[in-house]
């Protein structure tokens, strides 16, 4: 019953059981995983939050953003700025004194407080998405045009972050912060705590997006994906719905960035660049766009593969990544979830015909 309310669709009994088992397994993960593996899983789950948000706008809104690296990065930097200030105490962060900065820049001040950093980490990316969305969707700049603009956004933000070394740490990014609120980030107990926080955040993001897509807003969003002008003729303003979804998606990416930084301990401009941003799209595409759950599956699978392949064979990863893009787009546009449901439906159809045949004979 709770699940039904949460996911917004009734679902079959097996589905509900599957969900409960999955959730239970996820909760028990710390019991049978080494701290290192658990850390990896936490990282993947954090990234999955971003993927769910990306699926919301791409799968349901038909808006392909190649700019989610920026939103992710803004969240990550917000958290890193707080952590850096906590680690530096009353003195300036180390990279600032290297660059000869005298006092803390004004926009660093709010990040002294944890709640402020937490809110800004989601608010800033959401606001940036809101502004970009407002100025583009309003003019019916859609499809490829929008996608190219988001990619340009990535490029300029990365150049800006690299260029303003005295404020952002430049290419090195922000690193060197061992603890949060007094908890050491590297002890197993903190890791387990972070795991549950991340898991809860992911569940929250999933539920939020599920609620959105099954609401009226989601229906208008989906309709404007399929026929924007028709939606307009019906008296809706698609740009509002799109801007809203884009802002939510940006905020979720910021949340993902914050949790990611806690796990990895570093954020640098190269993690929010053009290649990582487009990689994020592949997570969703591989899992299956327009399914939300597919985004999570795709993220975890692809990142596990990335960890495995880059460990054994670093040059090969880009080749695999490129090939995956082509294969997924050409051969399985609905992703793994699409393949799965096709297999299930063909199996059940075969099963059905067998039953029918048996009945006939009987």
């Amino acid at each position, binding site marked *: 019953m709770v699940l039904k309310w949460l996911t917004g669709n009734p679902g079959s009994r097996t589905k509900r059981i599957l969900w409960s088992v999955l959730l239970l397994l996820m909760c028990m993960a710390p019991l049978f995983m080494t701290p290192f593996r658990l850390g990896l899983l936490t990282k993947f789950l954090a990234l999955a939050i971003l993927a769910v948000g990306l699926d919301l706008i791409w799968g349901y809104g038909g808006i392909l953003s190649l700019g989610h690296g920026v939103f992710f990065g803004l969240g990550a930097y917000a958290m890193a700025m707080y952590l850096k200030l906590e680690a530096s105490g009353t003195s300036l962060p180390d990279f600032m004194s290297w660059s000869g900065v005298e006092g803390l820049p004004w926009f660093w001040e709010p990040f002294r407080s944890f709640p402020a950093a937490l809110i800004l980490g989601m608010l800033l990316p959401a606001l940036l998405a809101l502004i970009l969305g407002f100025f583009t969707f309003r003019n019916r700049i859609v499809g490829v045009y929008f996608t190219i603009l988001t990619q340009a956004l990535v490029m300029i933000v990365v150049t800006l972050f690299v260029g303003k070394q005295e404020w952002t740490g430049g290419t090195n990014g922000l690193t060197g912060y061992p603890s949060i609120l007094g908890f050491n980030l590297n002890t197993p107990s903190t890791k387990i705590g972070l795991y549950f926080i991340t898991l809860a955040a992911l569940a929250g993001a999933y539920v939020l997006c599920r609620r959105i897509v099954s609401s009226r807003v989601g229906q208008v969003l989906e309709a404007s994906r399929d026929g924007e002008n028709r939606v307009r003729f019906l008296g809706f303003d698609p740009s509002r719905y799109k801007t809203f979804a884009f802002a939510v998606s940006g905020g979720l990416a910021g949340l993902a960035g914050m949790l990611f930084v806690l796990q990895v301990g570093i954020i640098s401009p190269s993690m929010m660049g053009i290649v990582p941003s487009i990689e994020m799209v592949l997570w969703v595409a591989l899992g299956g766009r327009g399914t939300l759950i597919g985004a999570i599956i795709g993220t975890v699978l692809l990142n596990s593969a990335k960890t495995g392949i880059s460990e054994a064979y670093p040059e090969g990863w880009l080749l695999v990544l490129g090939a995956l893009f082509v294969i997924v787009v*050409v051969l399985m546009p609905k992703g793994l979830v699409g393949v799965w449901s096709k297999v299930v439906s063909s199996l059940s159809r075969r099963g059905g015909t067998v039953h029918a045949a048996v009945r006939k004979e009987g």
Partner: protein
Amino acid sequence: MEMTILQVFNGLSVSSILLLIALGLAVTFGLMNVINMAHGELIMIGAYSTYVTQGLFTAYMPKSWFDTYFIAALLVSFVVAALIGWLLEMILIRHLYGRPLDSLLATWGVGMMLQQIARFIFGAPNVAVTSPSWLNGGLAITSSIVLPYKRLFIIVLVALVLTAMYLYIYRTVQGRRMRAVMQNRNMAGCLGISTRRVDGLTFAIGSGIAGIAGCALTLLGPIGPSIGTYYIVDAFMVVVLGGVGKLIGTVAGALGIGMFNTLFETYTSASIGKVLVFALIVAFLQWKPRGLVALRTRSLD
């Protein structure tokens, strides 16, 4: 005054390179509604073709002939890039018509693979191409202003390519077919134009121009497997700003972005300059969402 001349020259130089890269993009996007993210890698292929041609000339040709290698390299780059582009269209892109966002992702994947393959063949570090000796030095306008021949050569090269494109599109039978398909694909098909062949040919030509761009880039510095990615985003912005369907839009877009980029970079910093250009483009799109020049159409989705 001297400052202004230098400014204009630098702006023109940047614009000409952008234009060379964006030309192919604009044509394929206008015609097929396909965003070719592997365009940057076609540039890279052109650049490495030049590198290989130079190597062959050093190895097998008399020394006195070396300076002519660049002319040969221009041709080789065009042909190699055009062939690979044509193959790409045959194998992959024709399956993705009508799915512009998917074509974007798939071609990005192809670009990624091409980059990696280039890394396997030529190694990850950049390689340098020796420019022909007749392009060294520069044209002295006043005692303090010297315009490098290399950049002048690129501007002339772009002018030539542009003229050739213009003649092809507006003065030949093939070009007329291409414009017909661009305006109304179904109607052109009904009138007996093989849209498939037009698509393939256009894509090959667009890719070939990217190859020439790669060849030109070897004059400006060392080349590496990811050379295309430096330019590709700016080139896309040219297409967005200039609109699709008419050459003049692309020219204006390239000039606009190139000029403003150099202008802002002189008076602010490189990173702030980029931000300002981006803000200007978004502001401009508020006024003309379809870019400077757009084909008029009465169709609605």
